[in-house]
């Protein structure tokens, strides 16, 4: 393969050796089997399989190996999007229909039946701007928490890092989020809500939210392999959780003495600040955003550690 270069700087001995080799009729670019296998070994990745353990080193290694599976993650995520609306009449409209329907219901209840303050904003815009990050959280979490259980067949027959499955659902959640955002843009234009430079804070806010979703997905998906109760409890849990987050009401309505406890829910800081930087054009409330970021970024590595330790024997119990 590597033909020695006949550069003039090559030593006389080497050049001579090359000539002798040619004279003997040995093709210079063909290696003996020993050489071939020795150099192939160098290039080959050595994989060591050991009993499972809760080790951060193992975690880092698998995180590094995840780069090889980017293609799989992309393919699977695209596949989910492609398959979801096959043989459905409304197709992609469903991604819009769900948040719109919720917006309509909450508008009727919380601005007509009973009056909830909406910080001077038209209630539909106020609630939709919170439903958007909330729906991302709730849909991505529901789908990814059962992702391992719904792919039993794959898990017992093929190996790939199992976190790819929940991650592919989170990726789908991002796409749904973007689709549903177009409605918010329309609502903001219609109600003349101006956007300011503070809207750039959406990027870190969404990063915090995504980190939290991934962490929680990994944890719940891994637990559900043993206990299907997780999947059964999800709808109820999410319903309660939504009312424990400032979706239909503003954070300002939460009594000050409860605020400390209330903010332990990262979704509180995320939803509130999402709405605040976008609709009110104010800088984020750093107390709530920092709490959410701190919890999310501490939680994610711990959840990953747990997931990787459980991964090793998932195929046995699923």
């Amino acid at each position, binding site marked *: 393969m590597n033909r020695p270069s006949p550069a003039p700087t090559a030593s006389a001995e080497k050049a001579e050796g090359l000539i002798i080799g040619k004279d003997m009729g040995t093709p210079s670019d063909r290696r003996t089997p020993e050489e071939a296998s020795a150099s192939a070994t160098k290039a080959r990745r050595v994989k060591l399989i050991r009993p499972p353990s809760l080790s951060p080193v193992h975690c880092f290694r698998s995180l590094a190996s995840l780069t090889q599976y980017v293609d799989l993650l992309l393919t*699977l995520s695209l596949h989910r999007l492609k398959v979801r609306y096959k043989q459905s009449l409304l197709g992609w409209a469903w991604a819009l229909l769900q948040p719109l329907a919720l917006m309509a219901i909450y508008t009727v209840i919380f601005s007509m039946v009973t009056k909830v303050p909406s910080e001077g904003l038209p209630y539909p815009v106020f609630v939709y701007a919170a439903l958007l990050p909330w729906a991302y959280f709730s849909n991505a979490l529901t789908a990814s928490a059962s992702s391992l259980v719904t792919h039993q067949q794959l898990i017992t027959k*093929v190996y790939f890092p199992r976190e790819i499955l929940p991650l592919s659902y989170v990726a789908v959640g991002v796409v749904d989020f973007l689709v549903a955002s177009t409605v918010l843009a329309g609502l903001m234009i219609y109600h003349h809500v101006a956007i300011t430079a503070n809207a750039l804070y959406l990027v870190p806010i969404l990063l915090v939210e995504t980190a939290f979703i991934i962490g929680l997905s990994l944890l719940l998906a891994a637990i559900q392999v043993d206990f299907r109760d997780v999947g059964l409890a999800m709808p109820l849990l999410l319903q309660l959780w939504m009312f424990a987050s400032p979706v239909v009401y503003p954070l300002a309505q939460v009594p000050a003495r409860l605020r400390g406890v209330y903010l332990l829910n990262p979704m509180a800081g995320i939803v509130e600040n999402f709405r605040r930087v976008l609709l009110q054009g104010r800088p984020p409330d750093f107390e709530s955003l920092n709490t959410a970021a701190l919890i999310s970024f501490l939680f994610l590595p711990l959840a990953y550690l747990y997931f990787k330790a459980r991964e090793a024997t998932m195929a046995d119990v699923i």
Partner: protein
Amino acid sequence: MTIDLKLDGVYKRYRIKQAETDPRSAMGFVRRIRSRFLHRQDFWAVSDLNFEVPRGQALGVIGHNGAGKSTVLKLVSSITAPTRGEITIQGRVAALLEVGSGFHPELTGRENIFLSGAILGMRRKEIHANLDSIIDFAEIRPFIDVPVKRYSSGMYVRLGFSIAAHLNPDVLLLDEVLAVGDSAFQQKCIQRILELKHRSITIVFISHDLSAVERLCDRVLVMQRGNVIFDGGTGESIAHYRSLGQFQARSMVNPLAGVREAEITSLAFLDGEGNTASSLLTGAPLRARIGYVAHERIPAAGFSLFFWGLDTRLHCQFSTFLSGPRLDLGPGPGMVEFSCEELGLQPGVYVVDVNMERLGKAENLDYQSRCATIQVSAGKRVRGEFFSPHSWRMLEQGKAR
């Protein structure tokens, strides 16, 4: 010599859950919680495995069901982790434990190539590069843009194998995958695997199809109850495996009926001359002998043999109660012989179940499933699903000049 795969003191324990208790009762709930954490039965699927596979070797692993063969593949392919020990692999591994992994019925053949290929570890680039070759190998070009739910089962498995055949691994793990498609496609699969072998790819092949093992493997491990009991050349290992006898020791207690009243002890196939046969011919005579022990008198007994194809279809049944006298068995050992003048099974591999039952009660005294594997080779070559013994005579004919 480079070692591509090395197992060093590998053990695998499975925890068996206790039988589910009634979820409605309060005690059942407590018991379920307890059984989650306390009362789990251990089962060692493999214990103390030590072997090495040098580069370019094709290693076969054979053994009865439950011997731990599939566990070996699952461990090496990282599907599940060992309980103890260490496995070292050099290079890229591809494992084929089923055909059509990750296929989605709604997607077209082409879309599924990308999906399944990605799941099996191919990059998009590689799949693009091999797309035509995959489609041609599977012989499904006219249907490539049709959803796979409209495929025939043959097309489905051909596509599945074709994707796997285009993986480019350093170490290839195969589990019974040759049991797909018609015999022409099976030949093609074997050809493909032999090609990979010539490219110095290390192969671990698990199969009940001894003839395929014989063609593909350089070395064979015989496993029994989680251990390697024989490690040698293909011929010796297969001979050793055959000498093991096909019967696993069973407990004398039938969990359903208390103490077993009777049990099957042996099964042998003989050819027309009465010699033991392991390979049989379509259209040739066949005799099958079932040995049994009755522990008490059984006034109305029946024996059956079931021949299952590797496609898991039941191809044929032999029974004592379709014709002939009624069997009234006294206590003690005995033997029944079935004989068949012209075997109707077409060439292929069949897995045989033996059943001994009490007639009139629909109660099985003993059912030995998958207790023998036989290979039927082409004797009388006929086309069709099966060979039906027949005779013929001339009724009318033009006068010969």
